[in-house]
């Protein structure tokens, strides 16, 4: 059912051939290894679309350009390659913006091709004219306006180079319609790109490496903070070697999940606002924090004044601008995290930190969630059950794409990822509506993976029209909607911080089963625990995409929680409330 990408073998043009700008665009993209693009045609990009048919590029027609940028993003996250989105000028280009900002905050390599009005109309407020290089300036790594076909080869090559090198990010290439239509002599240039002001590579100084080894060897209570950088640098192997030699427990950021195998004995799990209490406690009690490819986002630090007060801090990070941005560190090491780990490893003292590890285990014992499987079925359907069962029935090996909100945090807590690039989620920007289109994009990167969207009823509705894209492409992506009838995370904040006034959070949804059917897909509904496994089994067996509407407990909350700006280990634990719905999953001896 997962349609293989059509392999059209078209001989590419040789140097010296007269080509239109539109043709040059695809000549370059094919040479950059692009096989699939996600887009939506329109007036100013029509020459490019017309030429595309002659090239071995598969185009996925989205239902909205936001879908195109999220699909390109999902493709990039799943594959590690560049995702390409295409849109027309004006509204087409502005619709890409949310997806571009999402990619920017999570350092995802995208190249977004937009059509622009003809160069002689620029600045005249022409039909569908928007200054998209101006609009996207603060949310791209770099962007280009191309007004002549001769500029296409160098600018597109630069775009791919800038998007992927150093700390990756999105690049917009805005091409005027006349630059697409006019011709010039095609001259491919495959010499290495040299940009005089661009220095993507950084290498650690030997003295700093020696200092780091000294600090790590001397630490009694070290914790590694593993971020997205581990995943992006493909440094899992090095991280494991480091952790095993130095015996250091690892806390992960949301985007770092999977970079460290969740079932490894030294993996603590996710840190931060919805991190488990022992993870945040371990960070607060540590005497050394070793931050690897992460950026001390406010969602992982809580109150900066009290964050890791007892710890010296080493920050290994590729982007010098992240050093001392939020947290002042004792030893910054600017470099590729994989390379730095390789350099550190031989000099590190092999040791056992048994007292520290046992101490953290003790913290865990106090507050660890009980085994969900052993919990009695008391007739209620909890999101944690739904996610835990998905983990079980997919052997923990599915590619999960989450949306944003409560379900996203529950997924991070209950779906244990043992491999990188198996959880795609919008971490930095927190973009609702991300999941479905990103999962479609991921499908084209991973034709053989089992892919599941986990989305809330709110976020799913933001980009639900992309269900038809699934149908048109004939690809399978299953969707689990965690439907609680509220914008759940906002409702939770209203419950905790706004006197329980549920303003604008109760949400009516369409009948998701019928919605799936209206899109030519299969729809299922589950209202009790007993129905979860059969529904998953049915979805897995069905050849096409399946949407499952899980009607979960309406006023459930994500615990534990560090309220915005509070100390990292000052967590809201499950309260004992008389008559309140009793959620056995979070019940512990301590709480």
């Amino acid at each position, binding site marked *: 059912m997962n349609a293989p990408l059509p392999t059209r073998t078209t001989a590419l043009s040789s140097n010296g051939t007269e080509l239109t700008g539109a043709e040059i665009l695809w000549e370059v993209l094919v040479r950059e290894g692009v096989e699939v693009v996600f887009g939506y045609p329109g007036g100013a990009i029509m020459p490019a679309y017309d030429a595309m048919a002659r090239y071995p590029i598969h185009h996925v027609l989205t239902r909205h350009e936001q879908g195109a940028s999220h699909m390109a993003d999902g493709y990039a996250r799943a594959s590690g390659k560049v995702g390409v989105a295409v849109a027309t000028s004006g509204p087409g280009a502005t619709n890409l913006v949310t997806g571009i900002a999402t990619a920017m905050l999570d350092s995802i390599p995208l190249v977004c091709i937009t059509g622009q009005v003809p160069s002689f109309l620029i600045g005249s407020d022409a039909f569908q004219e928007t200054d998209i*290089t*101006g609009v996207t*300036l*603060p949310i791209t*790594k*770099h962007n280009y*306006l191309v007004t002549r076909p001769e500029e296409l080869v160098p600018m597109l090559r630069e775009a791919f180079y*800038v998007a992927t090198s150093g700390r990756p990010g999105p690049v917009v290439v805005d091409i005027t319609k006349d630059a697409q239509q006019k011709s010039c002599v095609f001259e491919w240039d495959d010499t290495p790109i040299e*940009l*005089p*002001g*661009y*220095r993507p590579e950084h290498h650690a100084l030997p003295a700093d490496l020696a200092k780091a080894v000294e600090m790590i060897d001397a630490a009694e209570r070290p914790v590694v903070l593993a971020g997205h950088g581990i995943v992006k640098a493909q440094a899992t192997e090095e991280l494991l070697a480091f952790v095993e030699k130095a015996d250091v427990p690892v806390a992960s950021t949301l985007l770092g999940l999977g970079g460290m195998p969740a079932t490894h004995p030294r993996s603590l799990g996710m840190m931060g606002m919805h991190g488990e209490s022992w993870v945040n406690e371990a960070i607060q009690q540590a005497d050394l924090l070793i931050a690897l490819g992460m950026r001390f986002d406010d969602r992982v630090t809580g109150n900066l004044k009290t964050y890791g007060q007892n710890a010296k801090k080493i920050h290994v990070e590729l*982007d*010098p*601008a992240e*050093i*001392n*941005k939020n947290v*002042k560190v004792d030893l910054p090491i600017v470099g590729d995290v994989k390379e730095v780990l390789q350099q550190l490893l031989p000099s590190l003292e092999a040791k056992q930190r048994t007292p520290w590890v046992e101490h953290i285990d003790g913290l865990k014992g106090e507050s660890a969630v009980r085994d969900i499987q052993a919990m009695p079925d008391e007739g209620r359907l909890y999101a944690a059950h739904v996610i835990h069962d998905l983990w079980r029935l997919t052997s923990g090996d599915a590619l999960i794409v989450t949306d944003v909100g409560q379900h996203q945090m529950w997924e991070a807590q209950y779906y244990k990822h043992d491999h990188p690039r198996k959880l795609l989620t919008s971490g930095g920007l927190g973009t609702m509506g991300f999941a479905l289109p990103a999962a479609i994009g991921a499908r084209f990167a991973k034709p053989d993976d089992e892919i599941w969207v986990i989305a809330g009823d709110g976020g799913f509705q933001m980009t639900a029209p992309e269900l038809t894209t699934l149908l048109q492409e004939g690809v399978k992506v299953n969707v689990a909607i965690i439907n609680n009838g509220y914008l759940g995370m906002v409702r939770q904040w209203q419950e905790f911080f706004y006197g329980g006034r549920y303003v604008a959070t109760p949400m009516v949804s369409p009948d998701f089963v019928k919605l799936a059917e209206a899109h030519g897909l299969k729809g299922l509904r589950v209202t009790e625990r007993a129905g979860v496994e059969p529904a998953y089994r049915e979805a897995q067996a069905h050849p096409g995409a399946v949407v499952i509407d899980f009607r979960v407990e309406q006023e459930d909350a994500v615990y534990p929680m560090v309220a915005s700006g509070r100390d990292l280990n000052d967590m809201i634990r499950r309260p004992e409330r008389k008559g309140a719905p009793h959620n056995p999953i979070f019940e512990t001896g301590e709480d």
Partner: protein
Amino acid sequence: MEKRTFVVHVEDKPGVLNRVASLFRRRAWNIDSLNVGTTHEPGVSRMTIVCHADSCMATRIEANLYKQVNVLRVDDITEHARVQRNLALIKVAAGPKERPHVLQILEAVGARAVDLGPDSLVAEITGPQDEIERLASVLEPFGILEMVQTGLVAMTRAAERPQLRKVRAA
């Protein structure tokens, strides 16, 4: 937070000033003055940016400027001995009666009149910010009709340290 002076060499391409200004805006760093112009090197422009920052923030400003693809070189010259100048044009109300008096003032501070009209004159002064401000306050009683400043331009002193002749080769 102290006043810091950055010398920023950039590629002379459309939109580069916008990129640098946008960077300061979105990070909520306030620019005191920004001057930009061409250099002896074709395709290279030079900015002098003055802003308030502590040393930690200055390092971040430098790192963020370097993240701009079109930024070639950044030097925080705050700690270096340097020459810095600001040029101001001041149009002062001065008829035949006041004119000698105003010209006398200009001469006394090393400024000069670059244009004369029946009821006013245009004074030009080059120097550090405080000299310009002092002159403006002295001219104020005559009536300042217009005033414009270039913003600070700065360069490390000749003996300070050898600057690379070519930024592009850096």
